[in-house]
């Protein structure tokens, strides 16, 4: 093997190694930006967020200000986001809840969020300490407007567009 070929291959290998590293970083970066973009949408005034929601997909525009995310704003899981689909969200200390909160004031099956015709309803599942929508105690299925906190123990949740 000529020495020149080996030297070129040697440095080529090192460069390829770093290209790999930066490609991985690129993949991760796209991932991070996906998170950052949703963060910006959340932080924007609600009108703007809702208007992007309308222009985003024609199917969802019919529903108007549809909620697309459930965000934990206070408590131990603060910052957690759940992308909403068609499925109900169960909240409680039970391991199989969608959102597992370990809070002394939460019950095993505390509350659930159910979608009906594009509107989300919160329903208390007979919890010990109750579920509050803003200041009012939830007794039956109650429609949840965007940005209004649902309080469970020390945890607060909000629907975001």
């Amino acid at each position: 093997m000529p020495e020149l070929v080996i030297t070129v291959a040697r440095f080529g290998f090192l460069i390829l190694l770093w290209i790999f590293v930066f490609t991985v970083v690129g993949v991760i970066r796209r991932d991070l930006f996906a998170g950052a973009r949703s963060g910006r949408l959340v932080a924007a005034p609600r009108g703007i967020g809702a208007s992007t929601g309308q222009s985003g997909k024609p199917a969802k525009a019919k529903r108007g200000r549809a909620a697309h995310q459930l965000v934990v704003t206070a408590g131990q899981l603060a910052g957690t986001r759940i992308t909403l689909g068609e499925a109900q969200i169960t909240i409680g200390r039970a391991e199989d809840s969608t959102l597992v909160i370990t809070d002394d004031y939460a019950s095993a099956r505390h509350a659930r969020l159910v979608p009906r015709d594009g509107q989300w309803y919160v329903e208390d599942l007979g919890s010990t300490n109750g579920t509050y929508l803003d200041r009012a105690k939830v007794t039956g299925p109650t429609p949840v407007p965007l940005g209004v906190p649902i309080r469970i123990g020390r945890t607060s949740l909000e629907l975001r567009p």
Partner: protein
Amino acid sequence: MTAAAVPAASPASTGEQSGVRLARSRRNAELSLLLLAMVLVAAYAAMVEAKALDTITSDFWIPAAALGLVFLGLHLVIRWLAPYADPALLPAVALLNGIGVGFLRRYDLAKAAPAEREDLAIFAGTGGRQLAWTLAAVVLAAGLLAVMRDHRSLSRYAYTLGLAGIVLVMIPAMLPSRFSEINGAKLWIIVPGLGQIQPGEFAKLALLTFFAYYLVRKREVLSLASRRVLGIDFPRGRDLGPVLVVWIVSLLVLIFEKDLGTSLLYFGMFVVTLYIATERVSWLLIGLILFFGGAYLAYVLGSTVGGPFANFYDRAQIWLDPFAEPYDRGYQLVQGLLTLGTGGLFGAGPGGGQPTLLPEVQTDFIFAGIGEEIGLFGLSALLVIYLLIVERGLRAALAVRDSFGKLLAGGLAFTLGLQVFVIVGGISKLIPLTGQTTPFLSAGGSSLMANWLLIAVLLRVSDGARRPVTGGGGPAARPAGGPPEQLHGAQTEVIRP
């Protein structure tokens, strides 16, 4: 992307919805990164042969292709069972594993007599054995992904796993030295004639699962009840119980298994999980003080009393001045430092080093052995890859929705990082050297299997974290056959009087 194929979603490509973006599985990115990693492994093998044999044999690509097939299999399993798992984890780990196999083959070539080198079979020696271990480890990881459909189901076995972890840690200490001691560290279970396993590697996974479960239950009391001293919240004396118990256990490991690295690993793992659970800096301070206090105590006792502490004292002495006895006790560390120095900035090129001069180059000192050939430039790339793996693990911990998953993923990712720190710090004389394996690089089945299991758990947690909540009737991440599904599917029975 194929914008024409999806006309309905074409406006979404400009102002894409955050939900849609987050929901992408990114499996194709994983596949292309995996292919790039395997190209690198094949290139490494070719260069090793070019330098060590002066010619490239026609079957240099076989190990890379075999590894590629194994990882492709895991990739398909991920596509099927954990479609939203993190796309960077598998390729990064695959590259490290591939480089490890390539270097071990290179070590086999260096050991063989020059005349026999060309005839050395691809699947012989340490390299071939590592290839077989990789296959076993990847199959094990795929199996774990198949069995554990939701990381939360792991918490059901927390106490069992905790007990298993303690038993695994204790076995080598209890066994007579003949069955458990290699190179001064009692970390092994040796079955004469068959081989040996290192139970501690598996114990760290089991113990961490237990720590995560226990701390989710106890975090309230550990984080709320406190006294404020000097602006930092310190826990009450009676809440120090668990951390003291783990401290004593890791000191016992240090004394009876004569291994600082493992002891540091267990204790660091617990303290950091405690810190993640409570968000209290004071736990880190208490942990550091306890560990350094314990290590210093062992050092002082080693110099005065000797006995079980002598090994640690010896290692600390070598660390403080390896050049005092460069041909005797300090030989390995001195050779390691010289090897790294020979490598310099860009290394001697794969196949150009002298790995046979370095004792234990296939296990503990593999990082130095590789460093001689790819230099600081290449070693820092490998370290960045480790860093990225740890970062992805922590990211999964941040994004996952339940506390147990957060602690589990955060703790596992940190443990991997700490293990790399302990061994790389050891061979570069930053801390006293202890025989830890370098994850995914070192020869050895136990380490490879345990670390691939760790990656499988991280993949599972990241899948749970990134998966959008969809699907009929319940959370998508619910384990198949869980109680709610059973109720849902049960037939209504009418009870007549």
